[in-house]
């Protein structure tokens, strides 16, 4: 990459933003159809009520909360790559962070839908917020669900700020090369950016502080999400390991999603010079780390269920590994903690098909993990007479698929309308043009 020039970087990255081909439109409209179907299923829920889902006593949280936890988790790797690796001055992040950050923002847009959908009457969502009203009643700040509202909304706002702040110098480049409505659109996003030393100085300071604020935030968000469960007395949920277990799982799934999206992006936009095999390999190495942490959490959970000598806890565990949802449990163990170990083999983590395949398996495994935690915990609580079974209906499945389509809808727009790789940060990694060394821009 070091033999690139500044103008070459502009040309290569902006090339990805040229008018899309037929394949793009086919994928975009197929995705739009799935999204429309998902929206229909949601409207059907509003019209008929939550009874059209498979919810049945005692499993009153199922697919929607699974999807919520899954998508909040997906968001986490974006902040890891963009903020945490930025603070550690990890150089290879320059090429991947924009996509990872976009994944964060769009995953949060998706995750945020589910608590609203689950409300059944989403138009009353503002009841979750503290605001003065006639009855003098305020939200209960002792409730983990209110913590969730604050954590997810803060995460959403900070991620959007971080994403758009990072974009400003890049869209200034795009603004200069476009005309008509596109020019006006990018000129608005660029906010009059010119790259003066004054702008850079304050921009770099603000970027550093946003990264520093986002880092503890990301750890807090999935911890708070995990406390939605851990604060209750449901067997299998009430555990102190939940916060680190959820955070590691979140980053695990997020990294897998970033790999799943980067591989086709690199291929379609011919960005091999910028997104090298080393970038993907480094992401795979991070996956080994998070996979080991997730695997460790599975072992500890099992051990504690046995060692606690707590009958409901142990019963619930036995049910989890042998009951109706056992297949999902074993998929989770296999795909999340065993399959990623294949990345220890260099030939596998440097092979694109293997990377792509394993990243998809991890995505599936992590979705199953969320489902297994939530549904098996509720389905097999203390009293045998109240045990129940959740079976998803077509509405549950349609809303879940619609959520994936909603995420890809934004991602497909992003891939065509914004620079998928940070132009400025890639340029920063190149040696500056110097007369003394003969290097040119």
């Amino acid at each position, binding site marked *: 990459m070091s033999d690139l020039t500044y103008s070459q970087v502009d040309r290569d990255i902006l090339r990805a933003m040229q008018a899309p081909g037929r394949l793009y439109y086919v994928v975009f409209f197929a995705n739009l159809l799935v999204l429309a179907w998902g929206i229909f299923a949601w409207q059907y829920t509003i019209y008929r009520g939550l009874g059209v889902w498979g919810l049945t006593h005692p499993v009153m949280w199922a697919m929607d909360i699974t999807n919520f936890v899954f998508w909040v988790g997906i968001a986490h790797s974006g902040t890891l790559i963009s903020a945490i690796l930025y603070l550690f001055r990890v150089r290879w992040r320059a090429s991947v962070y924009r996509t990872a950050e976009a994944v964060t923002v769009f995953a949060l847009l998706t995750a945020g839908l589910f608590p609203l959908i689950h409300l059944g009457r989403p138009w009353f969502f503002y009841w979750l917020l503290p605001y003065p009203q006639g009855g003098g009643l*305020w939200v209960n700040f002792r409730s983990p669900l209110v913590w969730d509202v604050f954590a997810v909304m803060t995460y959403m706002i900070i991620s959007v700020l971080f994403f758009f702040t990072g974009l400003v110098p890049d869209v200034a480049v795009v603004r200069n090369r476009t005309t008509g409505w596109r020019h006006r659109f990018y000129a608005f996003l660029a906010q009059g950016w010119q790259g003066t030393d004054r702008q850079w100085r304050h921009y770099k*300071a603000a970027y550093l502080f946003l990264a520093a604020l986002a880092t503890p935030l990301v750890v807090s968000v999935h911890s708070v999400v995990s406390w939605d469960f851990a604060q209750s007395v449901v067997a299998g949920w009430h555990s102190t390991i939940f916060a680190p277990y959820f955070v590691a799982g979140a980053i695990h799934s997020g990294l897998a999603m970033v790999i799943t999206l980067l591989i086709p992006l690199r291929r379609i936009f011919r960005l091999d010079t910028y997104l090298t095999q080393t970038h993907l390999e480094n992401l795979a190495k991070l996956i080994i780390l998070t996979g080991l942490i997730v695997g460790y959490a599975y072992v500890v959970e099992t051990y504690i269920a046995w060692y606690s000598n707590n009958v409901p806890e142990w019963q619930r565990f036995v049910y989890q590994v042998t009951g109706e949802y056992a297949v999902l449990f074993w998929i989770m163990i296999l795909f999340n903690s065993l399959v990623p170990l294949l990345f220890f083999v260099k030939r596998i983590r440097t092979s694109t098909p293997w990377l792509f395949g394993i990243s998809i398996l991890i995505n599936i495994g992590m979705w199953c993990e969320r489902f297994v935690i939530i549904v098996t915990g509720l389905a097999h609580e203390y009293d045998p007479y109240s045990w129940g079974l959740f079976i998803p209906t077509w509405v549950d499945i349609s809303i879940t698929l619609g959520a994936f389509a909603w995420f890809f809808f934004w991602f497909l727009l992003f891939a065509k309308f914004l620079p998928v790789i940070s132009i400025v940060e890639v340029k920063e990694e190149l040696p500056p043009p110097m007369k003394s060394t003969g290097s040119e821009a």
Partner: protein
Amino acid sequence: MARPSAGLVGSFRHLDSLLEAISRLHQAGYRDLQALSPVPHHAIDEALKKPPSPVRVFTLIGCLLGAATGLVLTIATSLHVSLITGGKPIVSIPPFLIIVFELTILFGGLLTLGGMLLNARLPLVHIVPAYDPRFSEDRFGLWIRCEVRDFDPVTRLLESADAEAVHRVGE
């Protein structure tokens, strides 16, 4: 003394030429300089001898304000309702600290952005005439505000530092 409205813009192919021009202009007594570059560079800040950005103060104020808001919001509203739930004290500090933490980050982030916009004078509706699109691509610019009588010596200084082109702006 009023700030001159006119000035000169030198365009450079190389970073070291820009740094050379800054140092020569400083030696000749020209202080009102502004560099334009496609990427940030510490060497430019050092050459221009600019103070560190005050954005961090905004971040600190935002964080403190967020923490205070979190404490007041949780404690005051709980005291207002005074309804015991789950057998917990009305003012339960440990769970409230979660709200305090989130608002610390939220306000800190918002004021960081506000501090950046304010200090960097953004958003800017009209692009300054000194700006050339190439300064966002592969050229470095140096904008010197000076009196018209200084145009010739400044132009010579810029050219001696290997400026590719020198333009007059804002006359």
